[in-house]
């Protein structure tokens, strides 16, 4: 009976397993093989550290992603805790505004940055009226930072709200009655309580920024972030081996960050688009 059921369960798993093996595991194995087949051989995997251009691209991508993660956690942390605890007229509208961009593809996010900071952008317009000179920064690292912030904030806010709703109000009450000031409570009660939510959403934010291609594609014609470097190697230089090895290293980094975060914060860490 039990053996028959095991067989049936195996049959139910078979379609997903077969599709996954044929369309992900095998292609990935091929990618790994191609990566080692260039003029550099296996050393192609180290090129990201030894080749100055790739290394600069790696450093820029990591710095950008880390900066975006820090800024997002700070901003979305404040807004998320605020929305979790305060009810006021217009709250649900504000919440809807904050989560509307969740479904935007990276290219659309790039276009939103152009709307804000491009040649006919909103910020440039205001600055022009105030000072008489145009400010255009959509196509720079600052524009990229803004775009990554744009797609990260909604996701982190949702996780922070969910985490903040589970916080035990009695702990804060106790801290307050023992004479702790507002900042002390934030530092010693709220932030430790939100730790799992901050770690997991921070990791997703970092991993998504590392691999974000759409936004960079729209804005970063001249900026070497890793996904753009890989894209250029593959399509313009037809350097398949290098594109393959760089994308495997990038994939390893994002996977590692998510795996580490999960072991630090408990389950529930999954990347998103």
């Amino acid at each position, binding site marked *: 009976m039990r053996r*028959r059921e095991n067989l*049936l369960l*195996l049959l*139910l*798993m078979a*379609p*997903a*397993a077969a599709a*996954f093996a044929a*369309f*992900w*595991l095998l*292609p*990935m194995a*091929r*990618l790994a093989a*191609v990566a080692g087949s260039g003029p550099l051989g296996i050393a192609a995997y180290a090129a990201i550290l030894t080749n100055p251009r790739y290394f600069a691209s790696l450093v820029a991508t990591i710095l950008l992603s880390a900066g975006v993660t820090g800024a997002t956690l700070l901003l979305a942390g*404040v807004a998320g*805790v*605020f929305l979790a605890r*305060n009810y*006021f007229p217009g709250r649900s509208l*504000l919440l809807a*505004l*904050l989560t*509307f*961009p*969740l*479904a*935007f*593809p*990276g*290219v*659309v996010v790039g*276009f*939103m*940055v*152009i*709307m*804000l900071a491009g040649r006919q952008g*909103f910020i440039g317009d205001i600055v022009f009226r105030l000072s008489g000179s145009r400010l255009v920064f959509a196509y720079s690292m600052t524009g990229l930072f803004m775009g990554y*912030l*744009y797609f990260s*904030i909604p996701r982190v806010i949702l996780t922070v709200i969910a985490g903040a709703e589970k916080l035990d109000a009695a702990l804060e009450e106790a801290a307050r009655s023992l004479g702790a000031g507002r900042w002390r409570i934030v530092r010693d009660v709220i932030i430790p309580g939100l730790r799992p939510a901050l770690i997991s959403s921070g990791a997703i934010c970092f*991993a998504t920024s590392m*691999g974000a*291609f*759409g936004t960079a*594609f729209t804005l970063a014609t001249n900026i070497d972030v890793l*996904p753009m470097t*890989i894209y250029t190697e593959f399509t313009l230089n037809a350097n398949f081996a290098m594109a*393959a090895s760089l*994308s495997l290293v990038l*994939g390893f980094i*994002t*996977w590692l960050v998510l*795996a580490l975060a999960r072991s630090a914060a408990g389950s529930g860490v*999954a*990347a998103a*688009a």
Partner: protein
Amino acid sequence: MTRTGSFYAQLAVTALIGAFLIVPVILSVVAGLTVNFFQGLKSGLTLRWIGEVWSLYSGTVYLSLLVAFACLGATLLLGVPAAYVLAKRQSRWTRLVEELLMLPVAVPGLATALALILLYGGFREFRTSWHFILVGHVLFTLPFMVRAVLAVLTSIDLATLEEGASSLGASFAQRFFGIVLPNCRSGILAGALMVVTLSIGEFNMTWMLHTPLTKTLPVGFADSYASMRIEIGSAYTIVFFFMIVPLLLLVQRFARLGALDRQ
């Protein structure tokens, strides 16, 4: 409760973030309906750009919908049975399978797309059909369907329900279709909305997988942002908002129903 200065400071931060997110959306809606965005609203309003977008890019809308619903079908067929197995047998092996299925989400889409091209790019028929894009989308969305269904299945007492049914003589198939599927309805619905929304917006892989004859919505965006005037890019973005707003409303409504269920 009295509002303190801290309340207003936090409200201001939250409202500023909201403005940062929504001002460009409003601007692009305005730009897509304005005769000449550079001259501003005084140049007048028009539907001309929307019309032009439709004549240039309506194919991308249809293809995106086709891919999204095919993707939904595939993730239902592959993902729901897989989630059931994962819920029923929780061992080291099934944990490993779950981990593996998550990988296409943990690894950037660019890597998956390059891998698919390197292995299957030589099969011209396959490479140039929309099925090539579908494969990428299924890999990327499958984990979301599996997770949504798995979350529901592990929150109910599946073992007792199935035992009861089988002691009354229900076969494996009767249990699966009569007990399991109806019970994970809410998970399937949540997963389905997620799959469709993600598929419609997927760009990272699709840009590599598409061909000039298989352009999806986000591919069309990249094309129009790069080569068309800003009014057309904006009008195209309005079309996108029209497509996702109903989906988002459904998600929200559904989340509220889910919250009521749990109470």
